[in-house]
């Protein structure tokens, strides 16, 4: 076997992992943009690619080499961000403090917190919200309970936390001159005793 064959195979496999993961990402984006259409061929290809990408050997390699990274940043659409609000009350029901999140000090820390808030996506859909047995809804509520408890403990007098999640909505670009650029929609509210 010539000396160059082995590196060529290795490099080929490396790039194949990148192509497979990102093609799957592209197909998922396409399905997201066209939810009403039921393309059988698309589902078939998506299923086959998913089988390939999740094959234990490929998954192991792609995780450690970083080739499983999907490069569609801010694509095909820019997602909305969630904002939290925590109101802390004492035993008499008097408001002690209102804060929008934990007291993070660094810019990268705030970005990572914003990333955690993406877990609340299932709560934004009201039809999901009624289905309390859904795993992702229960998971989002558990995260919120954890956050509320953590923030509530920062104030020793606090006996109750009222937590609200808002979804950020930006106005349409063509109406940017007339309307305020941003608005917030309340998507979830819960009271937690401490």
């Amino acid at each position: 076997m010539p000396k160059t064959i082995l590196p060529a195979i290795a490099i080929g496999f490396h790039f194949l992992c990148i192509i497979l993961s990102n093609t799957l990402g592209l197909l998922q984006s396409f399905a997201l943009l066209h939810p009403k259409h039921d393309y059988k061929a698309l589902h078939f290809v998506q299923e086959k690619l998913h089988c390939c990408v999740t094959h234990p050997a490929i998954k192991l390699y792609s995780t450690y080499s970083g080739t499983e990274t999907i490069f569609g940043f801010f694509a095909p659409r820019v997602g909305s961000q969630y904002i939290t609000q925590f109101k802390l009350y004492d035993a008499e029901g008097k408001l002690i403090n209102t804060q929008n999140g934990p007291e993070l000090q660094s810019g990268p820390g705030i970005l990572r917190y914003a990333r955690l808030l993406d877990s609340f996506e299932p709560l934004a859909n009201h039809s999901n919200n009624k289905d309390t047995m859904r795993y992702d809804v229960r998971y989002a509520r558990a995260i919120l309970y954890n956050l509320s408890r953590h923030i509530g403990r920062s104030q020793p007098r606090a006996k109750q936390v009222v937590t609200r999640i808002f979804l950020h909505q930006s106005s349409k670009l063509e109406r940017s001159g007339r309307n305020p650029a941003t608005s917030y929609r309340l998507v979830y509210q819960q009271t937690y005793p401490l």
Partner: protein
Amino acid sequence: MKIPVLGYFRIGTACILLLTLLSLEDDFLLLYTPNGLVDAPLLELKHLSPTVTLNQIINWLSHHFNLDGLSVFTLLYVLYIQLCIFLVLGIHTKFTSLFLLLLHISIFTSLTQYSYGADYFCNILLFYCLVFPTDRSSSIDQLILRLPPISEEQLSLCLSVLRTHLCFIYFFSGLDKALGGDWWNGQALWKALHLPYFHEQNLLGSLLPHFPSWLFVAGGTAVVLLEFSYPLSLFVPRSRNAIVYSMLVLHLLIALTIGLYFFSLVMIFLNIISWLTGNPSQRYSTRLFTPYLRWLARPKPPRPIKEGKSSRKEEQL
């Protein structure tokens, strides 16, 4: 004179990792300790990748060495910093790269709830530090073990892999954006600049309402076309300078407007290493940094030998 490109690649990667960690300050404790903002077992419910999480390492070490969780966490934090310094110096480069890769994945990417683009790119950089002969370029390993220098063919192969990877990154990113309409009509750019957590760090925030809407349309279209056309830099050398410099400007703007400093830093670093230190003999090679890097890599003048004292080499002879 040869520029030790892979040496710079290794040193740059280690510096970026160190900066990423240190930039989190005390927030690192709040986000990543088992008793932090969200309980670690709850975060681990979404752990699906074949990796070991930070919490699993902490549990294992505290169980076997009878240490409390916070002490193990502090030890791992110090170990990460130490491994970064070892990687800068090139001490046991391969082992250091491997351990740092495993530790980086455990901390930053095994649980995706706090991860963002820069973490995954650091993972890619570390993997390349591991597989490329980075130990044979500007490293203590090279000095002590007298490793042979990297040949032109090896360097060319490594740079080709990096360049092709970059082409895939931008091509898929551009194609994904091009699928929807939001990037073509400027809505995506408008929205990205108004997102609350990015808007806080947006230096142009107060000026945004005064920008005409056509500027967002032009900006969104330019981003898609630029990313989509990036692979041309590989195959059409004449277009290389324009595309690569435009991409550097784009990443600078991302850093200034959205506040994704580390993501932009990683991408700028990858572009500089891949293209801007290219072989000067290439006619269309982009060489903005070449003179400076050549100056850095210049051979040091030999030290004058004091009379009456023979050098060790002469003694051996």
